[in-house]
C-alpha cells in the first residue's frame, strides 16, 4: 500500500506525458467544421466573368458535389489543382469559390492552370467564406445530394486523400437516396 502511494505520482506523470504526447500528433490548425451534417449556408455570389453566371447554394441539389474554396494568391492551390482536374475528369461535380480574390486574378489563374469547375463564384468580400467557417485556402466541402455538408477538407486534397477518403465518400453519397 505504502509503495503504491509512492508510485502514484510517477503513474500520474506518465499519464500526463501520454495525454500531451497524443496532443502533439494533432494539428491545432485543423478546426472541426460546424457545418458537418448541416445544410450549406445560403449564399448567392457573382461569377468571375462580368455579367457571367454566378453560384448559389441552391446549385447543390440532386447530386453530391465538391465545393472547393481557393484563391489565385494561395500557395498550396497549384499543388491541389491537378487533383481537382482529375476529380472532375472522373465525373464528379466540382464547384469553386474564389476567396478574397480579384475576378481578373482568378480568370488569369484559371487560364493558366485550366478549369475543373462547373461554376466559380467570386467572394471578394469574404462574407460567404465566414458563413462557411473558412480559416484559409484551400478548403473543400463534400456536399450530399440534399445540399448538406458531409465532410470538410482543410488544406489541399492530395491524390491519397482523394483515393482513400473523399472518393469513397462521394461514391457512397451517390448511392444515397
Amino acid at each position, binding site marked *: 500500500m505504502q509503495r503504491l502511494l509512492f508510485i502514484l505520482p510517477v503513474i500520474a506523470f506518465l499519464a500526463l506525458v501520454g495525454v500531451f504526447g497524443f496532443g502533439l500528433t494533432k494539428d*491545432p*490548425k485543423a*478546426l*472541426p467544421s*460546424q457545418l458537418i451534417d448541416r445544410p450549406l449556408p445560403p449564399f448567392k455570389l457573382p461569377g468571375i466573368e462580368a455579367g457571367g453566371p454566378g453560384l448559389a447554394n441552391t446549385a447543390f441539389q440532386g447530386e453530391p458535389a465538391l465545393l472547393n474554396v481557393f484563391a489565385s494568391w494561395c500557395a498550396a492551390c497549384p499543388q491541389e489543382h491537378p487533383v481537382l482536374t482529375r476529380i472532375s475528369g472522373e465525373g464528379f461535380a466540382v464547384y469553386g469559390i474564389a476567396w*478574397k480574390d480579384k475576378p481578373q486574378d482568378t480568370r488569369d489563374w484559371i487560364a493558366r492552370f485550366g478549369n475543373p469547375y462547373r461554376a466559380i463564384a467570386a467572394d471578394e*468580400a*469574404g*462574407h460567404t*467564406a*465566414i*458563413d*462557411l*467557417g*473558412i*480559416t*484559409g485556402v484551400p478548403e473543400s466541402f463534400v456536399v450530399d445530394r440534399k445540399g448538406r455538408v458531409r465532410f470538410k477538407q482543410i488544406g489541399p486534397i492530395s491524390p491519397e486523400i482523394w483515393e482513400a477518403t473523399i472518393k469513397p465518400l462521394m461514391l457512397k453519397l451517390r448511392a444515397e437516396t
Partner: protein
Amino acid sequence: MKRPGLAALLLLMLAAPASAVQPDEMLANPALEARARSISAELRCVVCQNQSIDDSDAPLARDLRIVVREQLTLGKSDTETIGYIVTRYGNFVLLKPPLEPATYALWAGPFALLGLGGAALLVWSRRRQTAEAPPLSPAEAAELDRL
C-alpha cells in the same frame, strides 16, 4: 532639457498600445465601437491562434472585426454577435472557454487537484505528528529527569 533619455522614456510611456483596428473599420458611434472592441478582444483569430481578432493584422481577422461591427449595427446584442461567430467557427474562437459538459474537467480540474493535494497534505501531516510523538521510554524519562 538636460535629460533627453528620461524625456524620451516619458514620451514612450505616453504612447498607446498599437491596435490592429484600422480607422476605416471603426464605427462612428463610440458606444457601439467600444462594444465591438470588447467583443473582438474575446474572439480568437483562427489564422494566428494565440491572438484575438482585435490584435491580429490577418485579413481574416479584419473581416471578422467587420462582421462583428455589422451585427452590432443591426442592433444585435453582444451575446448574439458572439453567437453569430460561434455558429460559424465553433467554441474554439472563444478565448475564454464556456462552462458546459465538455469543459467541466477544464474548469473544475485545478480546484479538484488543489483539494486532492490539500487532503493528501493533511493526511500526511497528521500521520507524521502521531509518528513523531511516541511516549518516552522509561530510560528516556530517567535521562530527562537527570537533566
